[in-house]
């Protein structure tokens, strides 16, 4: 592949999938700067391995799988911040949920196990099929389908329970206490 062809292919790849990878790294990474590192690393890896990259939709799955590995490496090499990462992973995606419904969603996601959360968001936020999720996670499609089914069920249960409690108690945004000066 000539340099010009490489550049054109990379441009097309980036134009098509950069928003997906930015979004994915956003909710998977502990901080915005980690997400930025991860996005850069994913596409730099893609640039280096452009000749090996599959075409079409498979390239998208390849990018997700690479991003997953990059973020896993980040976490391993960043053990000092591990506890903080766990606490902040969802906050990093959307720092301040602006409405009660979103607060419920994030709390429900936080209460899921990390494996449930990952498979659920790959399906619901990234729009991947069970077969594509299996490729990203490195498992059999039937396994991915089973995990997704269980994650959906757990999310629905937790969300419904939180909604029920929220309807019984007024939702109080933590910011209100500060802004109220109490």
């Amino acid at each position, binding site marked *: 592949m000539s340099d010009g062809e490489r550049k054109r292919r990379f441009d097309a790849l*980036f134009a098509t999938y950069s928003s997906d990878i930015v*979004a994915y790294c956003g909710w998977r990474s502990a901080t915005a700067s980690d997400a930025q*590192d991860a996005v850069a690393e994913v596409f730099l890896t893609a640039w280096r391995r452009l000749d090996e990259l599959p075409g079409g939709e498979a390239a998208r799955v390849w990018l997700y799988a690479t991003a997953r590995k990059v973020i896993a490496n980040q976490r391993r*090499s960043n053990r000092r911040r591990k506890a903080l990462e766990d606490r902040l992973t969802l906050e990093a995606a959307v720092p301040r949920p602006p409405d009660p*419904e979103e607060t419920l969603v994030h709390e429900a996601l936080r209460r899921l196990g990390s494996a449930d959360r990952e498979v659920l968001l790959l399906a619901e936020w990234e729009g991947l099929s069970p077969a594509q999720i299996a490729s990203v996670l490195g498992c059999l499609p039937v396994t991915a389908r089973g995990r997704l089914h269980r994650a959906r069920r757990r999310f629905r249960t937790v969300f419904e329970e939180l*909604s029920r409690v929220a309807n019984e108690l007024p939702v109080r945004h933590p910011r209100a206490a500060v802004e109220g*000066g109490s």
Partner: protein
Amino acid sequence: MNTSRSFEALRRSNPRAKAGFAESVEAAAAAIQARVAAGAGVSDPQTSFPRRRLIGVVAATLLAVAAAVAALSTIGSPGTEDATAAVKRAATVTAASAERSGTAVVRITHNGELWAGTTIRWHGADLAVRSDAPQRRGRAGSWLLVVDGILYGVEPGRGWVVLGKPENIDPGSGTTPDEYLASVREDVGGVTLRRTTGGMTGLQKRSLDDGSTVYSGTVAAGLIAREAGLKGGQPIRVLPFGNVAHDEAADPSAPLQAAVTVGADNVIREIAVTWGSNASAWAYTVTYSGLGATAAPIAPANARPLRERWP
């Protein structure tokens, strides 16, 4: 409950729908495309550079590259770039760069005299906040340091003291260190920067000899001094980095004069806000430096446990 409601709510929470997402993609696109286009050794998989350092270097250079791309993109089309778009882009680049580390020097003057000053250095979740204020209330030179989630302070006559986890400490001021530090992180993370520059109107552009550009205009005080609180039982509004907003700046609807200095590399160097009259003139400036390149603060080796105060 309708089963689909939970999943509809989940899909509505997709980060793609959030404000600023398009800007994140845009910034990443410009930076990475330029990095790859430039080559710069990226295609060499046999590099001896340590992996982590490579990632760090990439992260550190991405925004510089983005800034360079942004700067270069205006060379061929002078005058075609809208000032609002230029400030917005500079805020995006600066905020992203500031996310990792940086230094902000905050100064407030009243009638030309230094009223308050703070220097904030941050690196990841670690922070060093030093009061540079004149000798008001004996606080000049005081430090607040957070390293690895532990808060350190300086006690007069005792030196460094381990204060513990920020969230567990309430100094009785109405704002815990954890809340204060959260607001500092918000300020340095670009939220305040984007809100301030995004709210500027009537922008005028002025070029400086060093290649910098100053964008001046007005901004509602409420966009600058957004936080409300209580001090001495009186409602106050708080400027970014924790200073009290006086006079007009305490009225959210008051128009304040603002000037944003953007370097030739498209990174914001300074934000200056002024208000008041000759009888009571205020100036508030935040000067940024070392974005993406400020070293992490180090925990003081000689810090003593707080409990030693009550043996």
